[in-house]
Structure formats: C-alpha cells, structure tokens
C-alpha cells in the first residue's frame, strides 16, 4: 500500500506536470494516472482541474 503522508515524492509524474498541478491547486496524489507505468500526465491533471460541468 502507498505510504501515507507526503505523496509528492511518490507520485509518478514528470516534474513540469507536478508543477502544473501545484499551480492549479491540485493535490497530484489524488489524480488518476493514465500514463505509462502509472504516470500522471498533463492531461490527467487538466482533467482533474476542469470544472465538473465540462464533462456533462
């Protein structure tokens, strides 16, 4: 099981994508990864940031 606490070091994402999540105010450890080997992609972060209405 993933260690609790500081998820930042454990989530797989390219550094600029982690920065994007931070700028958008998103906790990247809550984003569902769709990239290779469970990597969080830029698109995953953007999807998590998009207002729910967009998906309607």
């Amino acid at each position, binding site marked *: 099981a993933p260690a609790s606490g*500081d998820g*930042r*070091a454990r989530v797989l994402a390219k*550094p*600029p994508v*982690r*920065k994007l999540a*931070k*700028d958008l105010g998103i906790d990247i450890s809550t984003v569902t990864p769709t990239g290779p080997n469970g990597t969080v992609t830029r698109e995953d972060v953007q999807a998590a940031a998009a207002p729910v209405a967009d998906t309607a």
Partner: protein
Amino acid sequence: MASEASEVDVIVLGGGSGGYAAAFRAAELGLSVTLVEKDKVGGTCLHYGCIPTKALLHAAEVADVARDGERFGVTSTVTGIDMAKVNEYKNGVVGRLHKGLQGLVKANKVNLVEGAGRLVGPNTVEVDGTRYTGRHIVLATGSHARSLPGLDIDGSKVLTSYEALELDRVPASVVVLGGGVIGVEFASVWRSFGAEVTIVEALPRLLPGEDEASSKIVDRAFRKRGMAIKTGSRFAGVEHTDDGVSVSLENGETVEAEMLLVAIGRGPVTEGLGFSETGVGLDNGFVATDERLRTSIPGVYAVGDLVAGLQLAHRGFAHGIFVAEDIAGLDPVPVEDAGIPRITYCDPEVASVGLTAAAAQERLGTDKVTTFDYNLAGNGRSQILATQGSVKVVQEVDGPVLGVHMVGGRIGELIAEAQLIYNWEALPAEVAQLVHPHPTQSEALGEAHLALAGKPLHVHG
C-alpha cells in the same frame, strides 16, 4: 492648468527592466500603454548596471586569460589596459542593445513619453504639465545607490557604481565598501585590471546572501588573487588625502587608497514622486505590495526594485510580465523570490537558486535536510578551464531539491538548469536518470544529483 491626454489601459512609470517588460507584455495582450521614462529606456540594468558591469567583467577576464596564456602553451603578454577602449567596447554593447530596445518600444506600439512623471491621483500621472490617465498604473521607478550619513559621493575619489562605470583610468588602489554583489564584481574587475583592492564588509562574510560555503570559496579565491578582505569590519569614516582617500574602520584600522567605492546597497526611488501623497503605502521606503504586486491603491501595481526583495533585472522582467497578464485577466502564477536565479559575475562566478542549506534547515529542521557538495576538482571541464569551486545541492530528505549553490569560472550559466530543477521540484533521482554531456561543467550538477540519488559516478572520497 495641465493638459490632458486620453485615457489608456496602462500607464507604466519608469522604463527599466520591470517597466518595459510590463509595457511590452501589456501591449502584446492588446492593451493600450503609455510608458513614462525620464532618462533612457532600459533603466539601471542596461545603462548603469548589469550590462556595463558585465562588459567590464568580460574585459577583465580577457586580461586574465591573456596574462595567463603560458599556462596553456600560448605565448601571450598583456602590456596594459586601455580604459578608453574598454569603455568604447562597453558603450558599444550598451548602445546596440539600447537601439534594439527602442525598436521594440516602437514595434510593440508602446507610447513612450519622455520626461519625469509624478503620481498625482490613483489613475493619473503628470509629466511636464500633461496629465495622463490610465485604468491601471504600474510603478517601476527602480532604485539608486545608497550611502551612509557623512559619506559624501564626490564622484572622483568617493564613488558609487554609477561613477565607477565612467572612470577613464584604472585606479592604482581602491577600497570597496560592501562585499555584496556589486562590491565584489567591481573588486574583481579592478583586480584583474591590476589595482590593489581592499574589500570592507561589516557582516562576517562576503556575499552574505549566499550559502556560507559559497562565501568561503570566494573569500579564498579572492585572497589568492591578491585582494585584501576585511569582513566583520565596520566603516567609521573617510578623509580625503593628497592622492586619494584614507578610510578608517571602527576597529581603528585605516586603509589608504586612490578611491573608495561605496557599494552598501540600493534603496528604492519612491520619494518626491507623489506616491505617499496619493496614498500608496510604503514599507521602509519600498512600495508595499501583496504577492500579486498590488499596492494599497486599487489598480496601482509596483514592480522591480521598488518592491522589497531581490534586486535583479530578471525579477523585474518577471514582475512586469506578471502584472501585465494580471491586468489582462490571465490569472498568472505569482513570482516568488526563492525561485529566481541569482548570479554574481566575479571571478570565480557565484550562482544560486532556492534555499541555502541554513535556510532549509531552519525551515524544515536539520534532520529533514541533506546536502551534497561536488568539488570541481573532479570535473574534467573545470580542470581544462583551470578553475576551482563547487556545486552544492540542498535536498529535502527523500524529497525534492531545495536549493543549488555553485562557485566556479563560467558557472553562472548553469543556474538556468538548476532553476528548472528547483522550480519544478524535481527529485535528485529524476535528474540523475538523465545524462549530462561530457566533458562539461554541467556534469558537476549531474554528479551532485547522482550522489544524492545514491548512485555516485565520479565522486572522489
């Protein structure tokens, strides 16, 4: 009565790094912009700061290289420094860049008003009797050299950087008051040009804003270059003598020299410009702003050296761009000082980004911070360049890189990479997975990250 100009979206007061960046970006975003400048666009950085000092530092490097050619097998000699030609070169660089910048003012369709402006209302700037109103105002009047009470700048024996840049000769000897960035850069230039140099700094070390390890290396290198360094020494007074000055220190010592450079810091240009009269809140002389660079008056922003913090041209650029984008409603991410790269262009160069080891330890606790210091003796390219120094990386234990601190010839350019690592909060292992080109100085940065990731390659015990 004053005449009135039609209202624009943005008035920028001051055409230095912060001001022109705000003006250009605002214009790019379709806003109408008036830029008020009383001297020359480009401000301190282009005309009296970054560019002319770095030209002098390059001439200094050329002198050192040519003097030291034998060591590399090149039979070369230096017979003198021709300050007239040095200045011609320096002014040539400034002139070309100034011309380019003037072209950009036109290309961006920024309305340049030449003259001294004054804030006369929350939306209004007055220049030579004409009133300009803007939906937004950006204050960008920059900074000027500070002095001490009783320490009068006469421009010939007691100088600030402003006068020092115009010297038509190399002083035989000079006392540099202040071991901060500007002080050590001038000290480095003059030493390379052959002067006897004494640096006086009240704090216990040179470059007190840098990581202690960096200060130590510079101190050692400067002494090796033959400079006298008096840290922890407070200035008491200066007297003019027949051939120069006699500088006395609080500890009773005196130092004689041809000139005294006063480089004890720069203060904001906020007085007599109507700022406080109009209600712009000041703090210690600087314009008080929030993290979005908003002053106490709605619609009025401040950028650059006016805002307390790092006094750097590229911080001004970043501020200017931020404010323009904020005005245009793009909701940009605020600019944080810690993420702004810092370079001191003395020999050896010093560069850093992020937190010092001490600051990181203070913030996170000693046991949460680890550092690795890679000595440039292990770096092939540095051996080739015959330079010494180190690359120190500060890391949160099991976490991202918190700071990078480097000293060495030509090391300044490397901080651009470190800046990405710091701002993108990369883990050492993520940097270590990638490969640095061989043989470069950048490999030292790579080696430090390899070591922190537990996989050192060229690390000597």
